């Protein structure tokens, strides 16, 4: 990989991972994955957690890395699939399903865009010995596409379509990702928000609130929209 990592710590993991494997991951560590990764987002969560449908047998033994994403993929005439690129989608919307999901799936790595709150990490991730990896940029779809060596399986394709189906892919040097959380449930994004907050407060000093307020609007610059 030709990306300049600077002084950032870089780790390569093989999926399925154990909690032990994740011990050395600090927030801000650059991570690459090998093995099998699967996609699951609202379509799958609803089916399995609300509709009671069964996950593929022995899922956690095949993979325990759940990617919040959909591929840019299409079906060939012979029924095989062609995946071009892969990019994470924002994970904060999926937090309400995670508690149950960890139980039924045995996931230890959640990958997506933008992380979740440290509150979610402490409530759902820490008890399950799991961490969150965020995609980079977030547009590194082509790099991630390159890391996919083959499609192992697709579940619920006919019912859910390309975007929501469960894609299981064999990956090699799949990344880069950045660890947003560690096993203690700290969040890199929240640490960075805290660092930029002082500068933001200063920028706003002396500016006036608009004449017409918005209902429910706050002026707390530490707030987030997720």
């Amino acid at each position, binding site marked *: 990989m030709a990306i300049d990592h600077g002084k*950032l710590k870089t780790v390569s993991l093989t999926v399925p991972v154990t909690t032990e494997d994740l011990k050395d991951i600090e927030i801000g560590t650059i991570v690459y994955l090998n093995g099998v990764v699967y996609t699951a987002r609202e379509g799958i969560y609803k089916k399995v957690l609300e509709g009671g449908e069964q996950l593929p047998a022995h899922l956690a033994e095949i993979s325990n890395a759940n990617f919040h994403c959909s591929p840019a993929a299409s079906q060939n005439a012979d029924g095989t699939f062609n995946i071009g690129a892969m990019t994470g989608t924002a994970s904060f919307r999926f937090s309400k399903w995670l508690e149950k999901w960890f139980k039924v799936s045995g996931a230890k790595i959640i990958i997506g865009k933008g992380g979740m709150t440290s509150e979610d990490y402490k409530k759902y991730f820490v008890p399950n010995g799991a961490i969150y990896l965020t995609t980079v940029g977030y547009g590194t779809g082509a790099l991630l596409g390159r890391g996919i060596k083959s499609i192992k399986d697709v579940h619920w394709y006919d019912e859910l379509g390309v975007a929501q189906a469960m894609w299981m892919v064999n990956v090699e040097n799949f990344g880069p990702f950045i660890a947003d959380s560690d096993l203690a449930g700290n969040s890199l*994004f929240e640490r960075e928000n805290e*660092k930029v907050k002082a500068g*933001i407060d200063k*920028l706003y000093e002396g500016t006036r609130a608009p*004449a017409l307020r918005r209902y429910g609007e706050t002026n707390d610059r530490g707030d987030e929209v997720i």
Partner: protein
Amino acid sequence: MIQVPIIKETALTLMDKAAIDIPDDYLTGLQKAADTEEGDLSSFVLNAMLENYQAAKEDRRAMCADTGVPRWYVKMGNEAQISGGPVALEEALRGATAEATTGVPLRPNRVHPLWRTDHNNNVGLNAPEIEYSFEPDADWIDITTVHKGGLFGSDYRMLFPGDGIEGIKRFFLDCLVAFGKRGLACQPAIIGVGLGGSKDITMVLGKQAACLRTVGDRNPDPKVAELEMELKELGNSIGMGAMGFVGKSMVIDCHIECGFTHTGGMPMSVHAFCLSSRRAVARIHRDGRVEYRTDPNWFTPYMRRETIGWQSTTASLKQSV
């Protein structure tokens, strides 16, 4: 007469180019940002993105798997004629969108808002959008496709004249900070600002300013141009960079477009054209020649006209002879 099969073929090529090849103006802007960024995490992100564009080009794969919501902008020369007329043109653009979705491949992102019905081809009710503009003294048509990310990074607010430039700056900051945290808007971006118009036009102008003007382009009104530079600097002084990490690269460029508005108001919109600033343009000439480029050249003097009529340049040329 411009033949529809040529339009369809050109549109297919445009879909491919937009999804895969990052436009040079944005790439150069991002490279500059990468050269000066000091935050270690932000720098890493920018370097990864530069590597990503390279991988997309080499492998001919989409640069971002969220291939956005493809849409079309058509600029028709006043003298241009299309076989089959505008109906055939729209059918060709819709057809090309569908075919490119499996061809590139793109992600079939478009679904019904309530029933989540997915045609698996990015075509549906009111999708893809097709917007039109016209150009005097021309017999070509310019077709632009833009694949903009669809979820975060745009907002609207009714400001009032009393809020002044300070109010504009404050709302600009609000948007950048709100969507900049965790990098929801995938910055550094080209930020488009719409000022004035009615609410719908405020949004349209801001979006077009973000998606249809290239990095380095300035508004012809010198005071607006100055404000563009000021806002760009303001955005880059938040102390935030890519993904919301500590850094200084938020805005690759800022473009403002204005429209006359209600005398009591100063509505404003902000749009972020993300790290995958995807646009591709082609001019189809009357004789079927096709030229590709990445600058839509959408905001022509005719588009920005301020009075009732428009003096045709050829007519005035003729007069002056």
